[in-house]
C-alpha cells in the first residue's frame, strides 16, 4: 500500500470512527447510560460505539468538525488541482459543507445547544490537519488521486457514523432532523466522488 493510500485509509476509516468510538466509551464510563455490557476493545475497528453515550453537544461538535475538515480539504484541492472535475468537486464540497455548518450553527443557537468539543471532534481536526499536510507533498495527478480517494473513504466513514452513531444518538428532535436531512447530501457527495475517481482511473 502506498504512503498516501495508508494515510487516507487511516484517516477516513480508523481515526474518524475510532475517534467517535473512543469518545463514546469515555462518556459511557461516566454516564453509564448504556445497558450493554462492556465488550472487547473496538477502538480500532469500524464498529461505532453505542449511540446512547453521545450527548447532543458532542454530536454538534462532531458535525462541525467533520464539515470543517472537508471544507479545508476542498480549499486545498481547489488551489492545487489543475483537473476541472476535481476542482468542480472540491468547490462543491466547500459550498455544501459550509452551508451545512451554517445550518448546524444556526440550529445550535436556536435550540440553545452548545457544541461540546470532545475527543472525537478534536481527533477529526488534528487528523484532518495531518491529511492535508500529506496532500501538500503531492502534485498533479498524484494529488488528484490522493484527494479523491480520501474523499470517497471520508464520505463512506461519515455516512457510517451518521447512520450508526449520530442519528441514533441525537436526542434533540431538530438536531436529529438536521442529521437526517444532511445524510442524502453525504450520499450524493460519495457518488460524485466515485464518479470523479472513476474518471481519474480511466485517464
Amino acid at each position, binding site marked *: 500500500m502506498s504512503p498516501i493510500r495508508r494515510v487516507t485509509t487511516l484517516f477516513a476509516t480508523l481515526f474518524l470512527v475510532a475517534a467517535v468510538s473512543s469518545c463514546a466509551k469515555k462518556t459511557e464510563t461516566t454516564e453509564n447510560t448504556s445497558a450493554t455490557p462492556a465488550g472487547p476493545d473496538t477502538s480500532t475497528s469500524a464498529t461505532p460505539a453505542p449511540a446512547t453515550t453521545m450527548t447532543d453537544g458532542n454530536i454538534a461538535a462532531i458535525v462541525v468538525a467533520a464539515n470543517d475538515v472537508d471544507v479545508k480539504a476542498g480549499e486545498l484541492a481547489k488551489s492545487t488541482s489543475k483537473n476541472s472535475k476535481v476542482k468542480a468537486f472540491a468547490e462543491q464540497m466547500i459550498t*455544501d459543507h459550509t452551508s451545512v455548518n451554517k445550518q448546524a450553527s444556526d440550529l445550535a443557537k436556536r435550540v440553545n445547544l452548545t457544541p461540546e468539543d470532545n475527543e472525537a471532534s478534536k481527533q477529526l481536526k488534528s487528523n484532518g490537519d495531518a491529511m492535508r499536510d500529506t496532500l501538500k507533498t503531492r502534485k498533479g495527478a498524484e494529488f488528484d488521486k490522493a484527494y479523491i480517494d480520501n474523499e470517497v473513504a471520508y464520505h463512506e466513514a461519515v455516512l457510517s457514523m451518521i447512520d450508526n452513531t449520530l442519528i441514533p444518538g441525537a436526542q434533540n428532535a431538530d438536531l436529529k432532523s438536521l442529521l437526517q436531512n*444532511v445524510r442524502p447530501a453525504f450520499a*450524493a457527495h460519495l457518488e460524485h466522488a466515485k464518479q470523479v475517481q472513476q474518471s481519474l482511473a480511466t485517464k
Partner: protein
Amino acid sequence: MLLLSGCSATAHPHAALHQVRIAQFKFVPPALQVAPGDTVEWSNQDILPHTTTATSGHWDSGSVAPGATWRQVMTQRGVESYACRFHPTMLGSIEVR
C-alpha cells in the same frame, strides 16, 4: 421558446402543470411525460440549493434555493435528460409527446 416562471400566459389554455419534487438529492419522479405546452415545476425540498439543467442546454434553472420552485414550459417534442449541475449524480428526464 423557453420561459421562466411567471410566463404562463404563453402556455396553452389547457396545458397542465406537472410537479417534480427535489428531495433527498433526487428528482421525484425521475421520469415524466408531458404534452407540448405543459409546464413542469420543480420544488426544492432539500436543505441545499440545486439546479435543473437540461443536458442539451435547452434550459438551466440556475441555483434553486431550498424551499424555492422553478418552472419551465415544455414545447419541444422528444426526450430531454437533465441533471443538477451542483450534484451531477442527480438525474431526471422529461418526455414531451
